[in-house]
């Protein structure tokens, strides 16, 4: 084992969860009926679209050493706000703008409180999570808002070159945020801030600004995901996406993004999101009873990280 080429070794180590993903995918393709059919792939893509979009910015957030629990509420509230505004004004653009504005605002507040006032991100975003969820109920009076503007549904239900629009969007997001993290000064600054805040500050990185921008982006993208979801559901749902925050953070961490900051890669995130999505999808296809799904999901999660760790150990 010592003899293995260091280069190969490095690739094998770095592959991390991508390898697990490949194995899982192969296993499902081989053993689960209907898994590889185009309609199932489509369904899988749609199923991970919300988590996928939100994960992109969560990756930045985690890379910078913070996290954001308010995303689930923002997804719901942005959908509701977009629906309400759309119904009131009849304009799709106005609705979308209102939803996005709400998300950006929530993100900005999170960012300012965390970065400028130095309050713990857990508490801050837990507080905004509650507030925003409350607003999602209050704005439409506790009920879901059906959307009457049919043009809007395009965003969620049309196809581009045979691929559902939300799937195209999430793929685009992966590309854009991958480039942002890996190829831009901003992305590298985020990693540096997460790696050692003090050192990054002394190296002249505008730590506070970086964090505020990240949180704002996070709010914006969560709102964007919420609007797409509303388009898919043809209504703004105040109680949707509860627990999304945990799902998103887990997907990122499963892929290998560090919770303590400084380590992140879009490949990790894609792997994490897809592993979680495939497990769920395969379980549904296999008709595993819901209570056993909990156990299987947990067990696979554990198995995946243990496998990855074992691989590393052997390599070390």
């Amino acid at each position: 084992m010592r003899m293995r080429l260091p280069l190969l070794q490095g690739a094998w180590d770095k592959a991390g969860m991508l390898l697990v993903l490949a194995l899982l995918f192969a296993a499902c393709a081989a053993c689960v009926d209907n898994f590889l059919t185009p309609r199932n792939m489509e369904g899988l893509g749609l199923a991970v679209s919300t988590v996928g979009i939100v994960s992109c910015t969560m990756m930045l957030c985690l890379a910078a050493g913070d996290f954001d629990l308010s995303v689930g509420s923002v997804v719901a509230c942005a959908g509701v706000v977009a629906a309400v505004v759309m119904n009131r004004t009849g304009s799709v653009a106005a609705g979308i703008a209102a939803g996005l504005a709400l998300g950006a605002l929530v993100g900005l507040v999170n960012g300012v409180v965390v970065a400028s006032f130095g309050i713990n991100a857990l508490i801050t975003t837990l507080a905004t999570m509650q507030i925003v969820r409350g607003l999602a109920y209050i704005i439409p009076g506790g009920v879901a808002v059906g959307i009457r503007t049919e043009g809007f549904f395009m965003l969620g239900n049309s196809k581009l070159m045979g691929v559902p629009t939300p799937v195209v969007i999430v793929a685009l997001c992966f590309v854009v945020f991958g480039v942002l993290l890996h190829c831009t000064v901003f992305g590298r600054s985020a990693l540096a801030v997460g790696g050692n805040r003090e050192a990054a500050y002394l190296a002249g990185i505008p730590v506070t600004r970086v964090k505020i921008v990240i949180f704002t982006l996070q709010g914006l993208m969560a709102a964007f995901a919420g609007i797409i979801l509303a388009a898919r559901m043809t209504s703004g749902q105040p109680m949707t996406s509860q627990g999304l925050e945990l799902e998103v953070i887990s997907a990122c961490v499963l892929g290998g993004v560090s919770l303590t900051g400084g380590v992140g890669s879009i490949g990790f995130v894609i792997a994490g999101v897809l592993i979680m999505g495939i497990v769920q999808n395969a379980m549904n296809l296999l008709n595993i009873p819901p209570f056993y799904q909990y156990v299987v999901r947990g067990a696979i999660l554990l198995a995946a990280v243990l496998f990855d760790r074992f691989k590393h150990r052997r390599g070390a």
Partner: protein
Amino acid sequence: RKPAASPGSGVKIGFLVKQPEEPWFQLEWKFADKASRDLGFELVKIGVPDGEKTLAAIDNLAAGGAQGFIICTPDVRLGPAIVAKATQKGLKLLAVDDQFIGPDGAFMTNVHYLGISARKIGESVGGALHKEMTARGWPVGEVGCLVVTFDELDTAKQRTEGAVSALVAAGFPAGQVYRAPTRTPDIPGCFDAANVVLTKNPAFKYWLVCGMNDNAVLGAVRATEGRGFNAGNTIGIGINGTDCIVEFEKEKPTGFFASVLLTARVHGYDTAAMMHRWISEGIEPPLDTRTLGIMIDRANFQQVLAEQGVRE
């Protein structure tokens, strides 16, 4: 004569429910399972706690080769999206328990539906509470009514509002109705919410208790017990008729008086059978089927449960 369908017949039906953890939906599934065994089709059960998971589940069904599905939607306003998705994927659709609402706020009566109106169940609870109170001869002035609410869920709201309106319509003073909003729809949450109402209104000697389901009423009844109330001065009536069974089986009667047993057999078995017939024989089910709840209490619950097939 039914066609001789076998597991190999290729009929595959989905049964999606909003809260798979709830015993009520467990029962529905259990009956649907029975139908699948009796009639020979494959049943796919998926829990769909929110809109996104619902859409994903329908995708999954279609991918798995199902021809139709029965759904209790997490939100009635998801109706149009579910209908659109089902149409797009070519799946037959039957709504159970909760009726879809369209973008205009009206019921989508063109979608096949089987259920009982949440509001009506609530009203029956309210009526029964008033009847029992009168039968016991409690002085109205000393009776408070504790309603455990969970407005985040539309059907829960309908039920509790229905109960209150029936009570008030029967002559119970509206000022003596106290709402206890719970943070979480489980027993401890309802316990804490009810406790606060009891604290604020120590004067009442008797309590009427209702809520969105058995668990809500159970939590509230536990809270009244903590304040020294008992079966003699509390009347709690739940909805579901499943979570309350252990309560009826206790040696001593408790404040949990009765519950509206929903007919899970009809909701589970019949819907599945209707869907199966629709798929395999092309016989469309009626657009709107209504079922009735049955009031059960310590006296009759064993018999009714046996009749309904909930208990063997």
